């Protein structure tokens, strides 16, 4: 089964509200990545976090890697309709496998 879990699975927000998705791995990760998949599209890389406790920002998006390197979060401030999509965390696990989290589908209501 899935070894990288995300919550929530779905989130509906009013435009302008904030949004956060949480990612939890059953094992320690050497790094964690975040991807965005627009409806009907394919996953596109957003960012990679490597260091314990690392925080990175991309405009309205804030990414955090947990101290134990087993969890991460993505926070979007003041959502816009262009933020609609499914957000995935991903990380290298056993061998050369590259696992994706279960994803959080974001709907932004104008």
């Amino acid at each position, binding site marked *: 089964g*899935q070894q990288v879990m995300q919550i929530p*699975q779905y989130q509906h927000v009013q435009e302008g509200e904030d949004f956060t998705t949480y990612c939890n791995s059953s094992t320690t990760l050497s790094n964690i*990545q975040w*991807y965005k*998949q627009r409806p009907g*599209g*394919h*996953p*596109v*890389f957003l960012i*990679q976090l490597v260091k314990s406790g690392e925080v990175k920002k991309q405009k309205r998006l804030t990414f955090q890697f947990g101290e134990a390197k087993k969890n991460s979060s993505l926070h979007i401030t003041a959502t816009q309709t262009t933020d609609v999509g*499914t957000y*995935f965390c*991903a990380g290298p696990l056993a*061998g*050369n*496998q*590259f*696992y*994706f989290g*279960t*994803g959080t*589908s974001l709907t932004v209501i104008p």
Partner: protein
Amino acid sequence: DTAVSQTPKYLVTQMGNDKSIKCEQNLGHDTMYWYKQDSKKFLKIMFSYNNKELIINETVPNRFSPKSPDKAHLNLHINSLELGDSAVYFCASRSTTEAFFGQGTRLTVV
């Protein structure tokens, strides 16, 4: 030029048929993957292929087989298609950091 290209984009076929999906990457990456995305958006890793080493996810039926004629190609062959195989299949390639995805192939088995 498209970095990772998959063909076909859509595939509708009857149960019991055998089909192939082609994937090519022009990024020079050593590692390629196949993922299956179901209706709930879960991205499940099926195979990873790195320097002729194939790692198979144990949950993948042996009706599915990857074929890599060279480093730039990783095709997916599916025998005796079943209704439950209907999904979107993504090919991806990865260097040491991010993964690049193809546009996806929506497979519908009727």
